[in-house]
């Protein structure tokens, strides 16, 4: 579902963020991207939703070589890749229902589709009864769940999460990660950048470890944060 071959990224100011990255993530797989601050986790994530284009190597997302994707096709790739962030990025003046529905609105989906899909998505993240709330009326964990619902409402085959638990307490973080793992088990490819050792060690899934932009370890199953 995601393939990177000899990928390198050098930012315009000359900073090298990734070097020689080879990575293949299967459909329905769950992969942690771990590493110290500045090791290139966000850079790698941005390659997947084509916020960035690799300066070296090839990146293939959902069968598409993103470097060959013309700019006007990028929005259509984005519809296949749900994204969530540490800062939730919800619209404060819209209800939970409208925030999730926004992802359908802006791709021109009919109203009926919105009223059908948004409740399903909210149900999936366990917020079936909070559709009429506003973001400020929710806890951090609930806000992140709304973001996940918004990322999933278009049924994308891939979900990219960049430190989704960065602003949450350990218990809530664990709930969110379990939700993401469950989403992966139902067939969505999930990659999650994090430096939360605790949840990585607890979940025991694939772990890709970056040090200064290079993959130093790729534990396919039952991985831990530091390889122990």
């Amino acid at each position, binding site marked *: 579902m995601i393939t990177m071959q000899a990928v390198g990224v050098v930012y315009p100011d000359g900073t090298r963020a990734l070097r020689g990255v080879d990575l293949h993530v299967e459909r329905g797989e769950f992969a942690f991207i771990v590493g110290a601050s500045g090791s290139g986790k966000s850079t790698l994530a941005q390659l997947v*939703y*084509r*916020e960035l284009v690799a300066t070296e190597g090839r990146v293939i997302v959902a069968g598409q070589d993103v470097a060959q994707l013309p*700019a*006007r096709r*990028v*929005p*259509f*790739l*984005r*519809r296949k890749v749900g*994204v969530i962030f540490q800062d939730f*990025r919800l*619209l404060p003046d819209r209800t939970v229902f409208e925030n999730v529905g*926004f*992802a359908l*609105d*802006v*791709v*021109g*989906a*009919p*109203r009926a589709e919105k009223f059908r899909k948004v409740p399903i998505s909210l149900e999936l993240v366990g917020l079936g009864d909070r559709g009429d709330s506003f973001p400020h009326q929710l806890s951090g964990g609930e806000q992140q769940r709304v973001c996940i619902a*918004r*990322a999933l409402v*278009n049924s994308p085959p891939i979900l990219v999460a960049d430190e989704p638990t960065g602003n949450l307490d350990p218990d809530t973080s664990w709930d969110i990660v379990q939700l993401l793992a469950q989403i992966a088990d139902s067939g969505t490819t999930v990659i999650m950048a994090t430096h939360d050792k605790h949840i990585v060690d607890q979940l025991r899934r694939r772990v890709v470890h970056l040090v200064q932009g290079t993959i130093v370890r790729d534990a396919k199953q039952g991985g831990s944060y530091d390889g122990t």
Partner: protein
Amino acid sequence: MAPRAVEMVLAQAWTGLRRHSLVTLGAVCNIAVSLTIVGGFFLLAANLEHMASGLAREAVITIELAEGVKHDELERQLYADTRVKDTRYVSKEEALKEYAKAVNLPYKDLAGAINNPLPDVIRVTVTNPEDLAAVANWAGRLEGVAKVRYRRDVAEKLLRVATGVRTMGLLLGGLMAVAALLLVSTTIQMGVHSRRREIRIMQLVGATNSFVRAPFLVEGATEGLLGGLLAMVMVVGGYSYLQARIEASLTFVDLLRGLDFLALVGAGIAVMGVGLGLAGSLIGTRRYLRLV
């Protein structure tokens, strides 16, 4: 675009117009003023040209007689020339009467108020307008002729004035239009800025650039259309009013008229307004939106 997308775009444009309503109003007024200037100068120039062409078509030479000269002999001489079709003597009293009628004043008042400054004249009609200059030249050298006037030199002067008016209108209006353009693009940039969070999310969930941009284009075009309509009302209304007033008092002035003509001018102004608005929002969104 799907109907739902059109609905979304229009709703966003409407919110945008209201969000910075004062700046929007400023932009609308600016467009209105610049287009009123362009339209006003255009109408002035067009009328001057119209009058000039009317004058140029009349093949009449006016010969002013020197003080005390009898007209019979001169008229006979002129009539003898084959290029001359007709001659008519107009005394200074008759000329003043004609003038009084043209400016719509009672002759008695006029004659009493001023010491008649008009000369006795002979009006010579030439068969072929091409011969105007030649006949005028020849007539100017005849005995007893003080001065020769014919309409073509007046027409040429009018045309020069019209060109000046047109250029000035374009310069002034163009300058104002640039200001209007900048103001529209500023209102659009403000809109983009206050919606930047929303736009960022739209781009992340896969909205196309045209979908992100469309509400701003609609917003700019609406500002332009409103400004254009205001200018249209001012130019067409003002012109119709002035036309009625001028033609009632100065009957010799022949102005461009007709619904077709005014409708064309009005439509032109409205179209220019929309164009200005669209151009402004293209500039405004280009500079601010990071279009991936």
